[in-house]
Every structure is written in C-alpha cells, then in structure tokens.
C-alpha cells in the first residue's frame, strides 16, 4: 500500500514538473511551491538532528554538562532580533563572530588549497622519458595553458604586445576549451537524470520496461 501510494505521488509530481515543458501551469506552480516548503522543512529536521541536538540539547539540557555551550546558543539567538527593527542591529554580533573568525580561519587554508597547491601541481616537468607523446603535449598544455589563462584574467595591463597580447589570446582559447568540456559534462549529467526520471515513469510506475 505504502509503495503504491508513494509511486503514484512521485509519478504525479514528476509529471507536474515536466508539464512546464509545454507551458507554465498551476500543476507546475504547485510542485514548485511544495519543493520550497519541503526542502526547508527537511533542513529544519536535519539541522536539529545533526547540529542542535548533539551539540546543544544533549550535552547541556539532558546531561547538564558543557554549560559554556549556552554562550554560542545565546549568540545564535541574536539572529532573531532581525525581526524587531529597534534591536535589529544585535543580529550583527553573530554575523561578526561567524564571518570574522571564519574568514581568519579560512585564509591560510584557502591560500594552501587554491594558490599553493595549484601552483605546485602546475610546476611539472614538461618531458618525462618514456612517456607517450600525448602526455608530454598534455604537460605542455597544462603549464602554458594555466599561465595563458592567468594572463587573460590579468586586467591591470592592456592585452597588447607579444607577451600579454599573444598570451591572452592563447588564454581565451584554453578557457573556451575548458568551458566546452564543462558544458559537455553538465549536459551529460542532466541527460542521465532525465533518463532516470523517464525510466522511473515507464518502468517503476507504468511497468512498461523490464
């Protein structure tokens, strides 16, 4: 019984969303609004189960330990002051705590992950004895392509002359190849999702495919 109701609900909602391909209609709007509400409802449950219960409710209110955790809870509650215009400025305190300390913590890690590791991974030998020619060509493309891409994004100098002019031209070519690859990858991902939904309708719901 549960399975049958579940199949029908999922199938009707799937068709409701697909109906948008014809034109916008009340069925699609209903599904669109439901997903907004259910996503946030689900987030409430997950936040309580994964964060609030193990980090606040259980240690402080059930076991009476780690009373210091009441401090971040009070700080978090200051967000709610945003609803009261006269004291709304208090909501800046939790934001200052999260943003300021978060940015300070992120700085060295971002430096490592986005700058140092990327540069380290780019500085590779162009030629490795015994490697196939396409790998050697690939290594050259990685080193010169990354440099050219960076030149293209460097707007403090006009893109003229043999270094900046030619470099930025190669850079935009490399970036276009990257965008093309990303586009192809994204399309394939979406199409596999589409196949999944059509399979659900034809196989699970209607039983036409086996």
């Amino acid at each position, binding site marked *: 019984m*549960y399975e049958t109701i579940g199949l029908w609900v*999922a199938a009707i*909602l*799937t068709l409701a969303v697909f109906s948008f*391909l014809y034109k916008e209609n009340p069925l699609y709007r209903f599904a669109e609004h439901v*997903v907004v*509400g*259910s*996503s946030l*409802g689900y987030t*409430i*449950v997950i936040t*309580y189960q994964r*964060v*609030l219960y193990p980090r606040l409710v259980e240690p402080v209110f059930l076991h009476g330990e780690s009373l210091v*955790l009441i401090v*971040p809870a009070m*700080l*978090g509650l200051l*967000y*709610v002051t945003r*609803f009261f215009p006269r004291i709304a*400025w208090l*909501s*800046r305190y939790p*934001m*200052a*705590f*999260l943003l*300021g*300390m*978060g*940015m*300070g*913590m992120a*700085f*060295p890690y*971002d430096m490592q992950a*986005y700058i140092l590791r*990327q540069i380290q991974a780019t500085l590779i030998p162009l030629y490795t004895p015994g490697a196939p020619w396409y790998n050697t*060509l690939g290594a050259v493309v*990685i080193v010169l392509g*990354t440099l*050219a891409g*960076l030149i293209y*994004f460097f707007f403090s100098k006009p893109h003229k002359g043999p270094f900046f002019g030619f470099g930025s031209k190669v850079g935009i070519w*490399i*970036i*276009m*190849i990257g*965008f*093309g*690859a990303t*586009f*192809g*990858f994204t*399309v*394939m991902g*979406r199409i596999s999702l589409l196949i999944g*939904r059509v399979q659900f309708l034809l196989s699970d719901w209607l039983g036409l495919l086996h």
Partner: protein
Amino acid sequence: MKRTVPMMIAMIGGIIMMIQYFIPHQVSQDVFNYYTEWAPLVGSFALVLGVGSLTRVHIHKIRAKAPNWPYSYAVLIPLYLIPVFAFFLPASIGGGTGKPSVFDFMYSRVQIPIQATMFSMLAFYIASAAFRAFRAKSALATILLVTAIIVMLAQVPIGDLFGRWLPDTGLWILRFPNLAAKRAIELGVGFGMLATCLKIIFGVERGWLGGAGE
C-alpha cells in the same frame, strides 16, 4: 555599539584565527576547537531567520490575497508538517519499524522526485540555449562547440562507433586543456577569496553589516 563593535569582533576574531594557524601551541589549538564547535551552533540559528522570513512573506500573501496566494499554502504546509512528522509522529506508515516514516516518505516520494525532475528538465533548456549560443559564428564559439561535442560523444557508447580516437580525445581534453583552464580560474578565485577575507577582517568590506540601523 551598533556598527563599530561588530566590526571590532570581526577584526580581532579574524586576526586571532589567522595567527593561531601559525602557532602550534595548545592554547591556539583550543581556540580553533572552540570555534569549530561553536560556529555550526551559532550558524544553525540563522535557519530561524530563514523560516521566519519565508513564513512572514507567505502569510502576508495569504492575508492580502495577493496574486497566486493559494500556492502559499503549498509552501507553508510541508514546511511545518515535515518537522511535526519527524519530531512528534516518527512512527512508520504501516506501524512498527518495517516501513519508512512519513518523514522518509515526504523526502523520498515528494522532494527527491520534484528536485530530480527539475534538474533533468535543464537538459532541454541547456540544449536550446546551446543551439542559440553555439552557432559557430566565430573561431572561439567553434572551439567551444567542437570541444563540447567531443566530450559528450566520448561518454556514450555511440562515440566508440567513430573509432577509439574519440573517447581518447575526450579524455585527453578533460585531463589537460580543461585542467589548465580550471586551474587558471581557481587561482583567480583563490586570490579573490584571500582579498575578500582580508577586506572583511579589516573592515573594508562592510556589506555584511546590512541595513539594520546605524
């Protein structure tokens, strides 16, 4: 008090967290542990703000009988019903523990189908947008088009019909030129993130203070 103190908190907190990374001492480790323990807790209360704002907007629409107001019930009912079922009626649909709960039902039979279908529908819109954007009007658009076609064909069995070179070329594009482009973009993003961190810590960027009074 209203602007200066929060900015001071952000600055002092930011500098302390930056310094603690470079000082391998128990005190700095404790500061780090406190922050990582406290931050999710503080951040989770922002959800109250989100839920409150959404509720307020939709209740206002219902009261004012604004255009499309009946759909606001489609937002509010699952928004409050899902937590009620999860916290107060966690029993399974069939009774006992053999069947999933109503909360699981709402997730697997309502939310997942709608979200998956919405994302899958993007396949149609991406294809139609690509048709308009990718017409090989210039050399750069042609490169984009050719690369996308090779990468797409390389991932499906039909690509093998053209010969082994097509999947190999698709893989080579993903491994090398695509990586070079991504790396250049990531380095740019990295420098941007570092600049933003410093701008927020030192009070140059003040957008986060919002408009909650001077």
